[in-house]
């Protein structure tokens, strides 16, 4: 019983991180119909910026905020400079460009920050809470992880549902041409979409790194799990991304806990294949056939 509880709690906090990463993928998918494979590498890069600041004597929170701001700027720059020329062309071109960015950011990080493992601090305790005589696998840091992902999800939902900016961003995502005819500056909306996505991605990078080791490829596994989560959630809605993230986190935690941790990646790919075969629009997507 205790084992089950611990595996579940561990799955939930891992799932929250996959959810954050899936949110970032969903934001860009909604706006441009591209899966940004460079998302993890961009997050790794901004996390290293935070680490550099923290190691130079700044507080964790200064590094945290700097990484999020850097994500915003990096996302906007990548869209304007690298993605803009391939937008509107075949989707495969854009996807290949994001793969190229992924390699480039990893190489750049190795040059700038070194390719060795470095430990990244956590802002809250990493010792589990105790319930009676048991210590459970739920730490103050887990609370922070789940809380911040919930805040981001609610903020994004509110942005899209209740603000004029959110309406313009959604309109641009669904129909660029009609949006232009309604005076929406579509290019600006795409830049903002990438910028917001990179902020959320950076948050996922920071949360994964907290209390762990970072190196230029530390996000690689998260890209796979976050992608599984996003596909599971249907790629369309922030809520679906979070649900997909939690389900993926739990499923992988059970596999790891009961079957063996070497099977986790295989299980993730198994979920991906199963979803694509059985419900390619994801568990939570309400969107009917769009292409007419």
């Amino acid at each position: 019983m205790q084992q089950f509880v611990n595996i579940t709690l561990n799955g939930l906090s891992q799932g929250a991180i996959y959810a954050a990463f899936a949110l970032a993928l969903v934001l860009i998918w909604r706006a441009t119909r591209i899966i940004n494979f460079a998302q993890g590498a961009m997050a790794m890069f901004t996390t290293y910026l935070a680490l550099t600041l923290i190691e130079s004597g700044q507080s964790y929170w200064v590094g945290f905020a700097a990484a999020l701001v850097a994500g915003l700027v990096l996302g906007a720059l990548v869209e304007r400079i690298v993605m803009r020329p391939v937008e509107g062309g075949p989707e495969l071109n854009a996807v290949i460009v994001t793969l190229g960015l992924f390699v480039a950011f990893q190489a750049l990080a190795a040059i700038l920050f070194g390719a060795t493992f470095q430990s990244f601090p956590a802002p809250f305790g990493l010792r589990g809470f105790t319930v009676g005589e048991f210590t459970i696998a739920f730490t103050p840091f887990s609370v922070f992880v789940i809380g911040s992902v919930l805040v981001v999800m609610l903020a994004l939902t509110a942005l899209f549902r209740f603000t004029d900016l959110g309406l313009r961003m959604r309109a641009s995502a669904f129909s660029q041409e009609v949006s232009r005819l309604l005076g929406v500056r579509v290019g600006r909306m795409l830049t903002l979409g990438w910028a917001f996505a990179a902020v959320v991605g950076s948050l996922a990078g920071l949360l994964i790194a907290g209390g762990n080791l970072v190196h230029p490829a530390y996000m690689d596994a998260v890209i796979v799990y976050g992608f599984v989560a996003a596909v599971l959630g249907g790629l369309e809605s922030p809520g679906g991304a979070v649900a997909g993230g939690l389900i993926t986190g739990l499923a992988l935690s059970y596999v790891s806990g009961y079957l063996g941790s070497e099977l986790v990646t295989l299980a993730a790919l198994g979920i991906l294949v199963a979803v694509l075969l059985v419900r390619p629009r994801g568990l939570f997507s309400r969107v009917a056939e769009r292409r007419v």
Partner: protein
Amino acid sequence: MAEPRGTLDIRGLSARYGPVTALDAVDITASPGRVTAVLGANGAGKTTLLRTISGLVKGADGSVLLGGRDLTGASAETIARAGIAHVPEGRGVITELTVEENLRLGELLGTARRGKGGREHRLDTVYEMFPALEQRRRREANSLSGGERQMLVIGRALLSAPEVLLLDEPSLGLAPRIVAQLFALIRDLVDREGITVLLVEQNARSALSIADTGFVLNLGRVVAAADAASLAGDADLRHAYLGF
């Protein structure tokens, strides 16, 4: 140059798709308070004309002026903000958004334009005009019928407080009774609000029934320009180009 507000002046407009000439030195003027019809068969260049005016087709020669302001080569966003509302063929409803969200997009543009003295239109007025839309305000626009979608895009365009309304085949796919209602509504709007309407139609008979002036396009050239009554009365022209 003292062009009146809301006058749309198209001078020597030419556009081509690769080697195909879609528009060939087209001159059209549309004035406020009047419905100007552009007629012609499929492939005559009518849709290209509207898409060039609203900035969706790039690289055309000639010029597009709104109230004397040169909009040639401007982006679609800028042209929309200048006061040209283009209701595209196939209606241009964003089906994933709700009815009200579609309308709010028009309202946002109207709010942005109001600083420049655009006419004020409110959501309530549009709901009063089209009660069917109010009943479905929270539904996805997907759920609307063809006629309701047409009401939605016209309402949305009106909320943007336009000086010029470009309508591309508004009668397409609608039952004759709905077409008659729609055209009566357009006429009424022009008379009450004094906006400029450029109406592109294959359904020449209905279009001429509400138009003041008409231009006939064939293979990208203007082959006839006259007031609507004389176009409708010209039997040779009707047989050759208008099919009625």
